[in-house]
């Protein structure tokens, strides 16, 4: 069964540093998403990407965040200057219409 692959599984970074979280979505999917989940809390929508551009973003997705699909296969989330409160699990998802598959996530720890 096709999977959404995320790397790394765990990243520790210093506050103020830039991080790039990487995702390889399922190849024939049209919609791409990033969600985050602070430990023990609900899954929160960050951004959706469709037709090579951001289609919607949440209030969490401020100027410190950006997404790219640089080569038609990878889908990345960049956080320019990490804050302690960015510590969370970040999930990439891909899909078509309302169906989507989530990756196993990257645990980001900002120290």
């Amino acid at each position: 069964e096709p999977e959404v692959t995320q790397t790394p599984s765990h990243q520790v970074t210093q506050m103020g540093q830039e991080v790039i979280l990487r995702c390889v979505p399922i190849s024939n999917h049209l919609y791409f998403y990033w969600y985050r989940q602070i430990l023990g809390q609900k899954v929160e929508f960050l951004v959706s990407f469709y037709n090579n551009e951001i289609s919607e973003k949440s209030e969490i997705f401020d100027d410190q965040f950006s997404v790219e699909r640089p080569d038609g296969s990878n889908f990345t989330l960049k956080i320019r200057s990490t804050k302690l409160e960015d510590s969370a699990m970040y999930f990439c998802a891909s899909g078509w219409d309302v169906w989507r598959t989530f990756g196993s996530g990257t645990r980001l720890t900002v120290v």
Partner: protein
Amino acid sequence: QQQVKQSPQSLIVQKGGISIINCAYENTAFDYFPWYQQFPGKGPALLIAIRPDVSEKKEGRFTISFNKSAKQFSLHIMDSQPGDSATYFCAASKQGGATNKLIFGTGTLLAVQP
């Protein structure tokens, strides 16, 4: 209006019992209601989903009941097993458009005791 409210926050059920998790939504534009199952360290995985043109959908031991007028839907897990122990999230979405973003409930931690 984008919220999805979920209860209970946690649930303990004996093996073989019925687990019931409830959700309520506000936005009448939502037209797709999935349930996701999440094991520790893993991403949410789609369990079962329903559209508002039906009142019930059953897949194996899992059933969604949907009440459009009350704007509520629930997940029933029949004959609950220890392997069902996980966090369950309800969600809602509006089909079509360039987003199809999911709004998740707050999650229910289910523990099925052997």
